[in-house]
């Protein structure tokens, strides 16, 4: 390392130019960065739920939908219906829209004495009250799935917009939102659906990026100015922050990694972490200034001393982030990898850019050391005395805090729905809640019926089981409506039998029918009524043909595939909570196991994706904590050349973790894809405090007993530890200004973890050492 420092200090210009050129290159690459706010797209492809979901989307042309709700006191009036008619017509024309189902265009299967008619309910908006009444009657008496197009209280009309699969759903959502917001209607409009929430997520992310990053920079500038009161003290660490963020985002762009709901936080996390090394170096530079004749000598010696600590703290931090890769959730892994890269980059710039720059500058004549430190030192001394006197009491308090925290664990709620991430007053959340309260629901569960060959679905036994399962699904709490091909077959069967409700069933395996036939009687052809038997499958095939004769090629494409090999039931759910989704998943699987004999079915849909994310969060949470603890222990064990000492470093971390989860349980912060990140980050960053403490404590132990060592260590190492924890903690606190509750919670949790791991280092470790007086702390002869 010395050689590196020497080279940098001797070739400062080369170093700086090299870094600047690369930074320009990475900065330029950023223009290609992709943005992907969709939380479900970070599910790994090999997860069964995701595989099935992708498979389903290959079979059926439309996956995502947007629900537009039109609220008015007078739904069934010519004016309102005209509005809805117009909106429907307009949305149908949007190229990314696959199809629209609204109260004004829903297809009605109607029967007449001699035939059947399949057509849109309105060819033009009703003009008179009588027309409206007629329309209303048809709407409610045609076995239509009205749950998602007419609200339970008849005050809202729902327009379901199914999007094509080959477009970006959030772009379509934007087009729809722009249209409804840009036009005046008589009623109030709400728009929701996963694409809309993803759009809002993206907008919130952009806003967060635009506001939070500048905020964290301002915070850093303030802290740097307070610490150093000179320009270089501000500019050099700030440059490290900006350069490392630029490199990291540039590398993300070059590797095609998108800005996601997770990686969106990267710049803020990285900024808070990256500034710390610079502060250390400049602090030391100022402190040692008197002792060296020129800037080059000064910085050379400062770096000789700090290379080690800077590397250690950076490597542990990077290790903590890398542990996020144990999660199978792509975006979480991305955050882990790229923050690690950023942290290592920041380390590299702290070790090169800062000394190179300082080597080019003169030592400032007036060097001020913050007088705050003086005050803080005094406070720490008082605290140290108290701690040494009452360490048993302190021990008790710590145990109590731990027990209390653990008691909060069972209260932790696992919740990954997108909607809970939005503040309650967010327009997206209001629309979502309003619509899900009044309509069938916007989350969906799909049951896929997979056949082994074409026409499989046309078999009566298959359609009967589809019908049975659909009826079961509809009877479940929170399932607002469901659609399947069986509905159409039943409806056609009924219509062709004079609307006789007894025929509102899937035809039997063999159907007994009455029809007419032409027979030759006395040399004349006459039409005679006859009874005959016919296979149900033939009946169904011909019903479908009858329907196709009046339909468009893709009319049924969202229910059954083109050659009738695969079909699906789509059940709409009005609640996205993990509790509801888990229950429905379980109930449905139980039912299938018990009652479905003939068919092979599989569950998928957004509901299954959310559940899959939940499982990955739990699994990933567990693993990432363990892996980060192991990685950190290995590094500290190497550093202290002792596994036992290495493990001591994790004591404050355990405390911070326990407190973290206890806090989540007691305060009611959900464990989710964002808050799960907290632990590993906290471990990687928080371990530094323990390292600093133990390192110093052992040095002090050479000169005295545990008590003296504690007092001296707290005086010397305590202050920098506290300053660092406060700086980094405040940086993370910036995240609490995020649009999203998940990010706010995470910012708060990491900040708290900084304070608790700091507390762990300056309270638990001393108390632990005072109580147990472990021999291993003693530095052996020969050890440095």
């Amino acid at each position: 390392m010395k050689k590196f420092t020497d080279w940098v200090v001797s070739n400062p210009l080369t170093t700086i130019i090299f870094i600047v050129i690369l930074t320009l290159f990475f900065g330029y690459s950023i223009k290609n960065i992709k943005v992907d706010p969709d939380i479900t797209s970070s599910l790994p492809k090999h997860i069964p739920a995701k595989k099935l979901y992708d498979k389903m989307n290959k079979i059926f042309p439309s996956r995502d939908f947007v629900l537009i709700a039109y609220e008015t006191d007078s739904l069934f009036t010519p004016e309102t219906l005209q509005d809805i008619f117009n909106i429907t017509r307009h949305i149908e024309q949007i190229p990314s829209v696959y199809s629209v189902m609204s109260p004004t265009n829903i297809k009605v299967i109607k029967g007449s004495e001699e035939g059947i008619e399949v057509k849109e309910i309105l060819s033009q908006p009703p003009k008179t009250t009588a027309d409206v009444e007629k329309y209303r009657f048809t709407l409610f008496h045609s076995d239509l799935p009205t749950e998602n197009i007419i609200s339970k209280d008849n005050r809202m009309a729902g327009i379901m917009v199914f999007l094509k699969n080959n477009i970006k759903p959030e772009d379509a959502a934007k087009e729809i939102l722009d249209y409804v917001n840009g036009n005046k209607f008589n009623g109030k409009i709400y728009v929701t659906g996963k694409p809309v929430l993803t759009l809002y997520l993206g907008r919130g992310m952009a806003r967060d990026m635009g506001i939070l990053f500048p905020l964290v920079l301002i915070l850093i500038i303030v802290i740097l100015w307070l610490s150093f009161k000179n320009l270089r003290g501000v500019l050099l660490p700030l440059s490290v922050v900006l350069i490392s963020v630029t490199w990291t985002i540039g590398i993300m762009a070059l590797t095609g990694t998108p800005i996601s709901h997770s990686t969106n936080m990267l710049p803020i996390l990285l900024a808070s972490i990256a500034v710390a090394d610079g502060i250390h170096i400049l602090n030391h530079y100022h402190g040692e200034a008197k002792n060296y004749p020129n800037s080059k000598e000064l910085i050379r010696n400062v770096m000789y001393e700090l290379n080690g600590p800077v590397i250690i703290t950076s490597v542990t931090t990077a290790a903590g982030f890398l542990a996020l890769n144990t999660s199978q959730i792509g975006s979480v892994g991305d955050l882990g990898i790229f923050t690690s890269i950023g942290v290592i980059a920041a380390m590299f710039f702290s070790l090169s850019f800062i000394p190179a720059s300082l080597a080019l500058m003169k030592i400032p004549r007036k060097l001020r050391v913050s007088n705050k430190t003086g005050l803080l030192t005094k406070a720490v001394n008082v605290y140290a005395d108290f701690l040494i006197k009452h360490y048993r009491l302190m021990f008790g308090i710590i145990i109590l805090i731990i027990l209390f925290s653990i008691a909060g664990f069972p209260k932790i709620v696992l919740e990954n729905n997108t909607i809970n991430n939005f503040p309650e007053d967010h327009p997206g959340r209001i629309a979502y809640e309003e619509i899900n309260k009044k309509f069938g629901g916007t989350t969906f569960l799909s049951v896929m019926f997979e056949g082994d060959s074409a026409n499989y679905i046309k078999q009566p036994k298959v359609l009967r089981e589809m019908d049975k399962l659909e009826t079961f699904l509809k009877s479940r709490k929170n399932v607002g409506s469901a659609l399947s091909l069986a509905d159409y077959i039943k409806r056609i069967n009924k219509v062709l039998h004079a609307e006789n409700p007894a025929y509102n069933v899937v035809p039997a395996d063999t159907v007994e029918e009455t029809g007419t036939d032409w027979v030759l009687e006395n040399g004349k052809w006459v039409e005679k009524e006859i009874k005959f038997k016919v296979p149900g499958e033939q009946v169904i095939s011909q019903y479908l043909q009858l329907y196709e004769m009046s339909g468009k090629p893709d009319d049924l494409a969202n229910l059954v595939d083109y050659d009738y090999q695969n079909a699906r039931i789509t059940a709409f759910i009005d609640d996205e909570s993990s509790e509801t989704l888990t229950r429905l998943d379980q109930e449905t699987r139980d039912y299938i196991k018990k009652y479905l004999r003939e068919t092979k079915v599989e569950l998928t849909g957004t509901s299954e994706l959310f559940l899959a994310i939940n499982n990955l969060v739990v699994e990933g949470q567990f693993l990432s904590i363990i892996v980060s603890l192991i990685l950190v222990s290995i590094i500290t064990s190497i550093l202290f050349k002792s596994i036992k000492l290495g493990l001591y470093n994790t004591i404050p971390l355990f405390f911070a973790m326990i407190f973290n989860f206890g806090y989540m349980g007691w305060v009611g912060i959900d464990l989710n894809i964002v808050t799960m990140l907290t632990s590993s980050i906290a471990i990687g960053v928080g371990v530094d405090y323990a390292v600093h403490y133990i390192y110093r404590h052992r040095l002090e132990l050479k000169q005295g007993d545990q008590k003296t060592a504690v007092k001296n260590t707290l005086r010397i190492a305590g202050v920098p530890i506290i300053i660092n924890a406060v700086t980094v903690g405040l940086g993370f606190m910036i995240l609490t200004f995020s649009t999203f509750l998940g990010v706010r919670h995470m910012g708060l949790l990491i900040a708290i973890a900084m304070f608790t791991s700091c507390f762990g280092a300056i309270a638990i470790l001393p108390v632990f050492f005072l109580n147990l007086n472990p021999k291993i702390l003693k530095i052996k002869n020969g050890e440095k």
Partner: protein
Amino acid sequence: MRKFGILVVVFLTAATILPAKKLTGYEIMKTALNKGGWKTMSASVEMILTNASGKMRRRIIQMYTRKRTENESDMLMRFVYPADVKGTGFLLIERENADDLRYLYLPALRRIKRIASSGKGGNFMSSDFTYYDIGKPKLDDWKYKLLGTETVGGKACYKIECLPASEKIKEETGYGKIIRWIRKDIFLTVKSVYYDKGLAKWKILTVPDYSQIGGVWFQTDMVLRDIQNNHTSEMIFSDIKINNIIPSKFFTKRFLQRGVK
């Protein structure tokens, strides 16, 4: 006119009518749609529908058609394949001043069901062809403009722009514009591009195969591709016979159900 319908379109050989002077778009279309070609026709039609994911539906139909009046035709179709709809019959009676009559005979029910008209713009047997497309071409529904000459498949063609003659035609057919390429020598449409009401490109008709039967040129293979919805319909004609005697009773409900009995 629109597409020619079923195969339809026809002309006499060029020599008979070609005037020496330069033809207008209207004259070219008139020639192309010249009524003199045939009165009745029967054929076996294979219809292949392919959706966006490449899945196919295949049907084989025996078809009989006649031109009943200047602007009206009748058509009887019987499904031969697939097995589950075999015997199904479809009778279409075009009416100039009223909705077409459409009847389907379902052998599984032994009943004829009338299918309410979805208008001329409705899809014919859920293919990309509309009833208008397969019906008798109506020269005066459109205004024509000769855009020039282009080569399609190595043959010189007139390129003709067809614009709906009225709002009604536009609404009914769903077409805001059609561009046709008509072979100069035999006056057969070999390619068409259909635009929707918003004038966005919608469907493309290509004619991979055509032949002369009884002195009349027929498109014997037509591929209509909906580029907006990525769906394709192909109709392949074989065993074409023209001006064979098809009795009038073929085009009745009674015959639809009774068949050849």
